[in-house]
């Protein structure tokens, strides 16, 4: 294995058999656990912008930096503050956090599940208390990013090396033809995230211990005028924009409690926006 450190987008090596690396908090453990393989690691920290300029956040900014950035929306800062552990927030980047994989234990233990290209979702018939309550037919994995839910509710825009799009378009539900949960092309890098300032925004998180845990349910709520956007973490294979009611949820036997929790947190988030 070799490590390259390009200093510009033009210097990025071809995508095949290479892995992009910034903070490394996902890539390094996945590499060592054998869940990803690569001949070349590409350290993109010199290529991906950092820092916050008005509404525009460099995708290489760490969660710790965003937690401290006074001008950012409350929901985003709170999502950062409650995410992961202090060390992981120091190391992990915004883009890395958006692109992180599920914590589904079957996936993480490399069972030949649908996301790994197999033909079964082991969680559905197995243990799934932490798993999805929406869009969980094909794959019951839950998306673990607090920040993604906050940005989805904030209607953020993602600027990559190839295109600019609403954050929602960064994600896709896995299906028979394609098990991926993101839409990034080979070698496509997230460079900036643009986050419009809302009138009010909140982020509430339910987790299994007081700190350093992934969301059982995370609720981001954003108000602009009479429009309210609500997005949830931990309830679907991708960050979930709540368009209907929670009654539309399709929980599995062990995770029905998530509907109750989500209902309560949504109600409280809306109240907090007032």
């Amino acid at each position, binding site marked *: 294995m070799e490590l390259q*450190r390009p200093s510009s987008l033009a210097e990025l090596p071809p995508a095949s058999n290479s892995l992009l690396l910034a903070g490394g908090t996902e890539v390094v453990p996945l590499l060592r*656990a054998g869940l990803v393989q690569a001949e070349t690691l590409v350290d993109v920290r010199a290529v991906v912008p950092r820092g916050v300029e008005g509404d525009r956040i460099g995708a290489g900014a760490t969660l710790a930096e965003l937690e401290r950035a006074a001008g950012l929306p409350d929901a985003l800062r709170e999502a950062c*503050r409650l995410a992961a552990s*202090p060390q992981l927030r120091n190391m992990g980047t915004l883009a890395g956090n958006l692109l992180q994989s599920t914590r589904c234990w079957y996936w993480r233990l490399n069972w030949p599940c649908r996301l790994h290209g197999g033909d079964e979702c082991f969680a559905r018939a197995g243990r799934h208390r932490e798993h999805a309550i929406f869009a969980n037919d094909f794959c019951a994995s839950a998306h673990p990013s607090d920040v993604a839910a906050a940005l989805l509710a904030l209607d953020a825009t993602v600027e990559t090396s190839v295109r600019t799009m609403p954050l929602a378009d960064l994600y896709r539900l896995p299906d028979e033809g394609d098990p991926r949960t993101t839409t990034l092309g080979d070698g496509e890098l997230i460079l900036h995230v643009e986050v419009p300032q809302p009138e009010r925004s909140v982020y509430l998180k339910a987790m299994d211990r*007081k700190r350093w845990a992934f969301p059982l349910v995370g609720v981001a709520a954003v108000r602009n005028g009479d429009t309210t956007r609500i997005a949830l973490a931990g309830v679907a294979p991708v960050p979930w924009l709540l368009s209907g009611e929670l009654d539309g949820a399709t929980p599995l036997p062990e995770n029905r409690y998530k509907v109750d929790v989500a209902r309560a947190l949504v109600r409280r988030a809306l109240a907090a926006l007032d």
Partner: protein
Amino acid sequence: MPSVEVNGHPYDVEAAVGTTLAEALRDELRLTGTKIACAEGHCGACTVLVDGTPALSCITLLHALDGARVTTIEGLRDHPMVASFVRADALQCGFCTPGQIVSAVALVEATPDPTSDEIRHAMAGNLCRCGAYPKIEEAIRTWRD
């Protein structure tokens, strides 16, 4: 061959790409004060400072350090926080303690008089199975005494 500065000293470390900073510190430089307890970035025992910021050395690639300054527990042996931990009995088996002290030092460098909430928030990534937490909090609160 990557070079890394540890506790103010530059070292050239011969190691394959993929070697973590924790492995380099322990196996190549024989600085075993930094412990590996999970090797996956979950427990904080391996915490070191990278350019003054707490980071998990067990998931930091040696080759990605690129000139960063690393501080390990060996570089903090005379920091008043060490004596504060001993005084407060903020350790039991001691395996997590170096990592705790590294995180604690970074906290008080940024916030010399942290509140209980600030301590709990900043130290949440350092697990202690023996449960020395109450006295760790006390050690941090009283580090200047």
